[in-house]
Structure formats: structure tokens, C-alpha cells
């Protein structure tokens, strides 16, 4: 019997049991759609995070407090990074162009009767250079503002709109934790960074922040949350990393493990890649399980179908079907179910990924590998899980099969 006849026959049987065929395919459809969607989302997250870090520029370095142990074991990082450290880096590390120390906290910001809970960021004037974040209106604060603890503030564009609407905020007084600040600048729109809205923020001099808002300084000096720096050029990033590390080891009198870490953009990209890669793998594995379960569903239905059709199998054998004919017939039925389920599932998966890509910041995209893998795997699953029931069918004794009522 040739293949075309077998396929025609299988299609006839499957269409005669539409409900059952559809339900069987559902498992494969869901499995396939979820593999493609999950891999798409995972890779989208990966791309999104990578682009965020790439947008910082290749020259950026971050200095974060805490030893490797502290960072992996505790949420409560030591507050041993100071404004003085940042100044030392700026003054003594030749490969560094600009340094901005940052101290941040969440606070209520009030203008007249309007209040917004927002991120308050204390930093130095170099922040605008290091993070390529410029003012839209007014002027950013200067070194002398930092030295004199001036109560001036630059508003993120979104916060400015929240508090002032269309009115001009420059020169107005706002209150941060009951300390009044004069608005001197509104920043350009910057967008979100890793889910943090950088426009819903208020930026003030680091010293003012430290003395008046957070009100605490660490025993080491003026505490900062993170220090950002830029190297002179891309080639000197590694040199800068090395020199900053050495300087801070000296300043912190480190003898064993570093109590800080210097990360380059490349480091950050690697870490993000590892994390999101693991995430993608996990999502794919979960989706893969549902694909596998779909395969078991096919096997289950095919086994039921063999039981149900013992008479048909017996008859076919009596009129001349060989074991192989029966085997091929059942395998083809299973494979067709899996293949159609695979194609429909892929279509739904592609639809899902496109929808997620269009409605969320995740740069979700259809991965060709995922599609090939999902379709290939579902086809194989049909074949694999179809073989066992098909063998059961082929083994049936025609006499017994014909007698069974």
C-alpha cells in the first residue's frame, strides 16, 4: 500500500472522529504555542535588558558596595562606599573621564497640595555627563551647590508634569521630606531603565541629600549607593576597572576580599545575559513539559482508539492488510495529529509573541530556532508516542479482533 493511500485513509479516520482528533491535538497545540511564546518572551527580555545596558554606552563603569559574599547572601549591603571615594577616583585615576556618585531613596515630594512618592536621587554635576542625561529647561546644579549643601532640585519630566501640569516649575518651591527645595531645572525625557522610570524622579545635590533628606552618614564618610564612572574611551575601560579597584582597595584597606565591585558595561551585559538566558531556558523547559504531556495525550488517545477499533483492525488484516500496513496506518494518524497540532500551535505561538512584542516593552520576537524546534519536536512526539499504540494494533490477532464485539 503506498503512502498517499495511507495518508488519505488516516485523514478519513481522523475526520470521522473530529471531536476526539481536536482534543488530542489540543495538547500539542498548547505545548507548541507555549514553547514558542515562552522562548519569544525569554529572548525578548534578554534583548530588552541588553539594549538597556548598551544604551549606557560602552565606556560606563559601576562601582557597587559590598563583597561578593555580602551581595549573594544579604539584602542589606554595607554602606562603605562614600562621596570621598568618588572624588578620589575622579582625581587619581587617569583613565577615568567623569565620576558621579549617587545616593537614592524613595520619598514623598510635595508642591502645594500635590504629593508624589518618587525616587529622590542625590548626585554630583558629573551625573549629566556620565549618564547622558541633560536638562530640558533651566540649569543643572554645580559643584558649588554640592559644596554648599544648596537646596536646589532638578525634576524628571514626568514628575514635573505630575506636580505642575503645564505650569513652569522653574523657581518654584517643592518639599522633599518637609525640606523645601527650589526647582532649577527640568530634565529631558529619558525613558525607563530596567523597569525604573527615570523621568519620575527628582535630582538634588548629593551633600544636601545626605545631610537633609536621608539624614545619616556612614562611619566612612558621605554614604553613596553607587558610583558611576566613564572611561576616556572604550579601550581604557579595562584599565579603568583595574585602577579603580586598586585605588579602592588602598582606601578601604582591603587585605582579603574586596568589599566593593567594579562592573563594566560588558560585565553587566554578561550577567544580564546569564540571568535572562537561564530564564529563557526555564520557560522553555516548562513549555517543553506541556509539549511532552501533549505527546502522552496522543499516545493515550491512540491506545483507546486501538481498543475501540479492534474489529476494524481484524477486518483489515483478514482482507489482506499486513502488520506493517496497520503499523504505518496508526503511526500516520498519530503523526498527522501531531503535525497539524504543531502547525496550529506554532501559528498561535507566533501570534502570541507578536502581541506581547506589540503591547509590552519586551522586545519579544519569533525565534526561528524555537519554531523549528517546536514543530520538529511535536512531529517526533507524534511519531514516538504513535509507535507504541501502532505496535499494539499491528500485533492484534485477526481472529480475536474479528470476534470481539
Amino acid at each position, binding site marked *: *500500500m*503506498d503512502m498517499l*493511500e495511507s495518508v488519505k*485513509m488516516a485523514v*478519513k*479516520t481522523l475526520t*470521522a472522529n473530529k471531536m476526539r482528533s481536536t482534543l488530542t491535538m489540543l495538547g500539542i497545540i498548547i505545548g507548541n504555542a507555549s514553547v514558542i511564546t515562552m522562548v519569544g518572551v525569554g529572548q525578548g527580555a534578554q534583548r530588552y535588558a541588553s539594549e538597556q545596558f548598551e544604551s549606557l554606552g560602552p565606556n560606563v563603569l559601576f562601582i557597587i558596595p559590598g563583597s561578593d559574599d555580602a551581595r549573594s547572601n544579604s539584602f542589606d549591603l554595607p554602606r562603605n562606599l562614600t562621596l570621598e571615594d568618588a572624588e578620589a577616583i575622579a582625581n587619581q585615576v587617569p583613565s577615568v573621564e567623569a565620576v558621579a556618585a549617587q545616593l537614592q531613596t524613595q520619598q514623598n515630594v510635595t508642591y502645594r497640595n500635590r504629593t508624589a512618592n518618587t525616587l529622590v536621587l542625590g548626585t554630583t554635576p558629573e551625573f549629566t555627563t556620565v549618564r547622558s542625561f541633560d536638562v530640558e529647561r533651566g540649569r543643572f546644579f554645580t559643584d558649588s551647590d554640592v559644596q554648599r549643601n544648596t537646596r536646589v532640585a532638578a525634576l524628571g519630566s514626568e514628575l514635573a508634569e505630575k506636580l505642575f501640569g503645564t505650569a513652569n516649575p522653574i523657581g518654584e518651591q517643592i518639599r522633599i521630606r518637609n525640606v523645601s527645595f527650589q526647582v532649577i531645572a527640568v530634565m529631558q525625557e529619558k525613558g525607563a531603565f530596567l523597569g525604573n522610570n527615570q523621568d519620575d524622579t527628582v535630582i538634588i545635590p548629593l551633600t544636601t541629600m545626605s545631610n537633609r533628606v536621608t539624614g545619616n552618614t556612614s562611619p566612612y564618610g558621605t554614604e553613596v549607593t553607587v558610583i558611576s564612572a566613564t572611561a576616556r574611551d572604550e579601550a581604557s575601560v579595562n584599565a579603568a576597572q583595574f585602577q579603580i579597584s586598586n585605588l579602592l582597595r588602598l582606601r578601604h584597606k582591603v587585605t582579603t576580599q574586596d568589599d566593593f565591585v567594579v562592573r563594566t558595561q560588558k560585565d553587566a551585559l554578561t550577567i544580564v545575559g546569564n540571568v535572562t538566558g537561564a530564564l529563557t531556558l526555564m520557560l522553555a523547559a516548562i513549555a517543553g513539559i506541556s509539549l511532552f504531556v501533549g505527546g502522552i495525550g496522543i499516545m493515550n488517545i491512540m491506545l483507546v482508539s486501538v481498543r475501540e477499533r479492534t*474489529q*476494524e483492525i*481484524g*477486518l*483489515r*488484516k*483478514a*482482507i*489482506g*492488510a*499486513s*502488520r*506493517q*500496513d496497520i503499523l504505518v496506518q496508526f503511526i500516520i494518524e498519530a503523526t498527522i495529529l501531531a503535525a497539524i497540532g504543531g502547525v496550529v500551535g506554532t501559528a498561535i505561538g507566533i501570534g502570541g509573541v507578536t502581541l506581547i512584542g506589540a503591547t509590552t516593552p519586551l522586545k519579544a520576537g519569533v525565534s526561528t530556532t524555537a519554531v523549528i524546534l517546536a514543530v520538529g519536536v511535536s512531529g517526533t512526539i507524534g511519531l514516538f508516542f504513535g509507535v507504541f499504540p501502532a505496535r499494539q494494533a499491528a500485533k492484534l490477532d*485477526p*481472529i480475536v479482533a*474479528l470476534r470481539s*464485539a
Partner: protein
Amino acid sequence: MTQPIIRLEDISKIYGSGNTEVRALLDVNLVVEPGEYCAIMGPSGSGKSTAMNVIGCLDRPTSGRYYLDGVDVAGLSDTELAHVRNRKIGFVFQQFHLLPQLTAMENVMLPMVYAGISYNERRQRAEEALTRVGLANRLSNKPTQLSGGQQQRVAIARAIVNRPVMLLADEPTGALDSQTTQEVMAIFAELNTSGITVVMVTHEPDVARLTRRIVWFRDGQVVHSHLAPSELSQTAVFS
């Protein structure tokens, strides 16, 4: 001299072993010549069904030789037996065994699918076979849309469509009323007249009487073989 269609030589079929041994057939010798119309009768447990299965190549004898159309089929593999069933034997069953999802036409075409015959020839031959059993106007009906007698006629068309050397019918009228029994038996008689060998297992003496030879089984052995009354009195089956 022509080859017998069936030649059973000392055929035995034994199920189980030791104390539970069941001797379904014991040294059966039987010859059926081409063109015969033969009924196998006997009480239940007499071995007639087992004999039928052996003759139909659905089951292998434990010992003995079975020549079907001159070929020793005892030593054939499963696949070869499937081929023999496909080409040399046409089966008719008590319960018709038509596939419900297929039309009459498609049911009749099925054996030719396994024989690897082209679609056009399959259509043509199936139509001829269905016309021969008087169902030319029921080609595209599904089994559920046909009466019992019509379903059995579709099954007969399916049995003859591959031009087998013999028709093997297992209680073909067991599920039919007396009126349709007569119709179906008339078809068998007509097919036999046209030269097809027919072997039929039945327990209905009225049915057996319409054949030309009756073979009696008892306790796994052929105990008696004689011409049917119709042959003796020379009355036509079509009366």
C-alpha cells in the same frame, strides 16, 4: 488434472498443553475442488470454526500440511499470509464487518487498496462488484444507511472484488431474517455458478441444504461428507 483449491492433509490444531490441552482439530483431511459449493456443519465445539480459520489463513495449524491453490501455506510468514488472504480468499462474516466511516464503494475498494491497485481501476471494479450483488444504486451509502441484507451484499462484493480463488463465509446468514437469507444465498449460488468456489460455515440446515456438498465436523474431525439434498434431487437453487 486440476489442482484442488483446498487440500488439508492430517491437519491438527492443539491449544495449550498438558492437562489443559484442547485438540480443536485432529488429523483432518479435506479436499475442495475448484467450483465446489460446500457447507461445513457441526455442533459447537466440533472444530468447524477452527477449520475455517485455518482454511482462511487466519490461523496456523499445529501440524499437517495445507495446500491452498497448490501452495503450501503452513510455512508462510505473517506478511505472506496477509498477501494470500488478500489475493486468494474473499471473506464474508456474520457481522458484515463493514467500516462505518466508509461508503459502500469505499468499503468494497478496501481490499484493492492493500493489493496496490490504482484508484481508477479500484473504482471500476468496485462498481462492477456492487452491480453484481444488485447494489448499483447504493454506491455512496454508508453502512448505517443500508439494511442488514444490503450490508451483507456489500460485504460479498468486497469479498469478490479482488477475484479470489474462493469465498469463505462464516455464518453469512446468521444475522439475517429468512427473506434476506434467501436473497443472500441466491447471490452465493449465482457466484458459484459463475465458477467461484464457495466454502461456508453454518449451523442452519436450511442454509446448508442450498449448497451442493455438506461436510460434517465432530470432535475436531471430519465425520461425514455428502452431496446436499438439492444436488441429489437435482432441483435448481433458484426455484
